[in-house]
Structures are given as C-alpha cells and as structure tokens.
C-alpha cells in the first residue's frame, strides 16, 4: 500500500473518529442503539455541502452540527414522549430524514464541491497549506476529545453516563431521564453530523446515501477500540474509540489494496462488527470448552 493511501486512511479515520465518538455517546453512555446516525451523518454532509456552494464553508460546520443535534432530539422525543423503542425511533427518523436530506440538497442525489472554498482551503497561502487535510481534522478531533473528557465528568455528564447504566437510579436522585436522553442523543448526533460535514468538505462532495451503514462503522470503531485498547479510564475509552476508527479505516484500505471490490465494503463492515460483538461469547465458549476438556482429562487420569 502506498504511503499516500495510508495517509489518506488515517485522515479519513480522524474524521470518522468524531462520528464514532457520537456513537460512543449513544451506544455506551446512554446504552441506546441509535440508528439515527446513518441519516444524521448525511444530514451533516448535506447541510455542509449546501452552505459551501453558497460560499459559507465555516458557517457550514456549526449549522450541520445544529441540524444533527435536532435530528437526535427528534429520536429522543419519539422514545421518551411517545414510548417508541429506541431502535424503532431511530429507524423512523432515519427514514424521514432521507426525504429531508434530499430537500436540503435541492432534490439532487449528490452535490459536487469542485473548486469551492472549504475549511481545508482556509489555510491556503500559509506555510501549513499542504498539511491542511490532516491538521485541521486532528485539531478538531483533539478539541472534541478534550471537551467530551471534561464534559463527561461534570455534574450533567455523570448523570448522562448513569442514565445508560441505571435509569431508575437517575430518577431516584431527582433527575428527569427524558431530559438526559434528549440532550444525550442531541449531543451524539451533533458529533455525527459534525463528522459528516467535514467528510463532505474533505471529499468535495455530498451524496444522499453516504451515511448508509455509518452506525455499523461507528459501532465497529467503538468495539475494536475497546477490545484492543481497553476501557480502564474515561480518557482511555475515548482515545480507544479514536484508535478503533483509524484502525477500521486502515483495515478497509488494506482490503481494497489487496483487490477487494469497493462494493463489498459494507459486507466486510458487517462481518467485522459481528465478529467484534461476538468476541465475548466466543471467548467464554472457548474458556468453558477448555475447562470441560481439562476436567475430562482429570477424569481419565483418575
């Protein structure tokens, strides 16, 4: 694999890591499988691309984040106020957003951003110009990690984490879990849309189906990170998610390099996540088999 391709996958990994951190918020701290992600990623990209074509690449980022936040809020309200299961609430919002995303893109399936200014061109004319592609995402990612690290230790952050652990306990310390879910899913999808917004500008196009399977990629990153880098402390968990996201991109890049057709990407993603999710079961199975085996040999000896 060429150095350029490797650098490219790290750059992508850094941007996708922001999305994976969003998935971490919903999946791990709120303990909710939030499928809104697929469409809020596209929403972020669509809003970002549209504002770029209007000449506002910087404004595009916070606008996309706000849109993602609202999408997460809708899923949360479906769940808390209408008592729709989280999984189904996410699917409904995902479906509805597909139409909205098309509207945002003026009913075009994709928007190219050729020769449009983007956040990546904002360093043009400075000495950092040639590094913009990785430097800007990296700085943003570090900022996101730091903010999350601090936020998750604030009074509200603690309650958010506890909501996923034990919502009964959260209510019994006087906190409305409807509120924590509302803000939690808002934050999660805000990060996802942030990532989508950056990807659109990085790749110079937005596509209405670019978010398909995004939640699985996010999950893969979270789980790969946990398995390989541990879950000991909060900071470590956050960094593990990031490393998981970068590693995932790497694996994909290598697979493509080895001749895998790009159309098989989604299948590979699904297989990776299945394996990662099944890892604890397989591990437990192996241990118990070993135990049974050793007992049998003891019996034989005795």
């Amino acid at each position, binding site marked *: 694999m060429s150095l350029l391709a490797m650098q490219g996958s790290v750059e992508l990994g850094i941007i996708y890591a922001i999305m994976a951190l969003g998935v971490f918020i919903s999946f791990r701290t709120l303990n909710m499988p939030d499928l809104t992600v697929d469409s809020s990623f596209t929403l972020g990209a669509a809003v970002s691309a549209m504002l770029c074509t209007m000449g506002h690449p910087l404004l595009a980022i916070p606008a996309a984040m706000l849109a993602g936040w609202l999408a997460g809020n809708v899923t949360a309200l479906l769940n808390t106020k209408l008592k729709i299961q989280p999984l189904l609430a996410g699917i409904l919002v995902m479906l509805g957003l597909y139409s909205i995303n098309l509207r945002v893109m003026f009913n075009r399936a994709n928007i190219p951003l050729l020769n449009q200014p983007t956040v990546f061109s904002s360093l043009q004319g400075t000495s950092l110009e040639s590094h913009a592609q990785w430097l800007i995402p990296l700085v943003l990612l570090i900022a996101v990690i730091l903010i999350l690290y601090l936020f998750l230790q604030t*009074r509200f952050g603690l309650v958010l984490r*506890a909501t996923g652990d034990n919502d009964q*306990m959260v209510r019994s*310390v006087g906190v409305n879990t409807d509120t924590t879910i509302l803000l939690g899913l808002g934050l999660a999808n805000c990060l996802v849309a942030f990532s989508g917004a950056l990807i659109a500008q990085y790749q110079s196009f937005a596509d209405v189906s670019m978010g398909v399977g995004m939640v699985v990629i996010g999950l893969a990153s979270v789980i790969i990170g946990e398995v390989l880098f541990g879950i000991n402390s909060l900071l470590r968990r956050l960094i593990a998610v990031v490393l998981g996201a970068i590693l995932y991109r790497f694996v994909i890049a290598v697979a493509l390099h080895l001749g895998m057709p790009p159309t098989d990407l989604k299948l590979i993603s699904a297989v990776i996540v299945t394996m990662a999710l099944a890892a604890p079961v397989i591990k437990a199975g192996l241990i118990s088999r070993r135990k049974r085996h050793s007992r049998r040999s003891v019996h034989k000896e005795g």
Partner: protein
Amino acid sequence: MLKINGLSKTFGLGSINEKLAVNNVNLTLQAGEFVTVIGGNGAGKSTLLNCIAGVHEPDQGSIFLDSMDITFWPEYKRSQYIGRVFQDPLKGTAFDMTIEQNLAMAYAKGKPLGLQWGVRKADAAMFRDRLARLELGLEDRLKQKVGLLSGGQRQAITLLMATIVEPKLLLLDEHTAALDPSAAKHVLRLTRELVEQYQLCTLMVTHNMKNALEYGTRTIMMHDGSIILDIAGEERREMTVEKLIDLFGRRSGQELDNDRLLLS
C-alpha cells in the same frame, strides 16, 4: 410529614387480570415516625410505596408530603424529597461508575444540574467521612466502580445516597431481603442509625416479623390492598410475633402466607 388519603390503585383495569392492588388506603406519618410494613404476598406493600414514590400514578386519592400535594408529580421530581432503597441491590446505584461519582450524583439532588465539576474535592472528603461510618472499609475505595461491590455494600451505599441530602421521607422496600443474614443485620443497623440521626419519616417494608417489631416506632400490616392493623406505642411494645400472626388471621380471615416470611 406524609399524608395519604383514600389512595387506590388498580392494575390492568378492564382486563381479565384486573387487580385492585391498593384499596382506599389512609395513612398519616408524623415527622420522625419510623413505620414498618408487613403483609402477605401481593398484599400491595410495594404498590403503596411505588405510588408514594411516583412509579405508579394512583387511580384515586391524594398524597401530601408536608404541605405539597405530590399526587401527580413525576417520579424524578418527588425524588428530590424522597429517598429510596430497593430490594434489588442493582437498582440503587450506577454499576459502571465509581463510588464517589454515585455519591456525587445523589449529593447533587435538588441542586441545579449543569456543567459544574461532578465530584468536587471538598465533597469527596465528606463522602469519605460518611463512608467510614458505614464500617465496611469503603472509605478507601472511592474511585472503585460500584459494580465490584457486594450486595450488602451496595445497599449500604444506596442507603447513604438516599439520605445524603436529608429527605422528607425514606422508602425502604425489603431492602435487606436479597442479603445474607449478617449483611442484612448490618444494613438494618445502619438504617436505624441514619433514621434516628436525622429523625427521618420512614416507611420500611420487611418480610421479617421480628424486625418489623424490633425496628421503628409503629407497625402496619397490609392485606388485599388495605391496612388491617396499625399499632404503635404501648400496644406495639407488648406485641409478639405469635400474637401478630394470630391477629392477622382474625382480621383477614386467612392464614398469613408469604413465601419469604420469617417468623423469627
């Protein structure tokens, strides 16, 4: 002070499983009163406590805490004034968070919920102090996850969480039922100490008849959703487990059945 008037709760209204779980209950607890609650399986003890805590909305009646009509308040809002310990030791704490984080959340009860630092240094010192009083050696394990603790340790922490901001009412629903005898005894002793220290208005459901008479200042017995016995003072001091069972039989016309009931 707690005042319950004509409280009724029916589950599955209109279905074949319709069940009148709490039937027109009137109950007043004076400040500092510690009431133990006993009764057979399905007598409605948990339902009564859940109606008070806001888990279930009652069909009829009203619930006043001091002068506040809390009948239709949501659960989380009542929790500002009500401390609870559940039967299941897993229910009272967030297992993936540390002891000090759990305590900090409980200590933030009634305070604005924002971006203040979660566990402040001064608070942590206070937590250490309070944990030491539990006599379980937890004061040196502030940064350990609650998931690593035993059931008894968790119940002790939940009890501390329920009282760390002084509640107007403490609800204990068989909070020692899942513990081994020595842990149960320890948690009961802590309960008594805390209740006496803060003069807490308390409702404690127990399946242990002896404990019901030994702890607290008043005992009520429930059957089929109603309170069929309410004793305090002299009458209670002279009560024995045998007499209590006998009284139950006469008032309810049935034998006391509770598969977990302990008579001694």
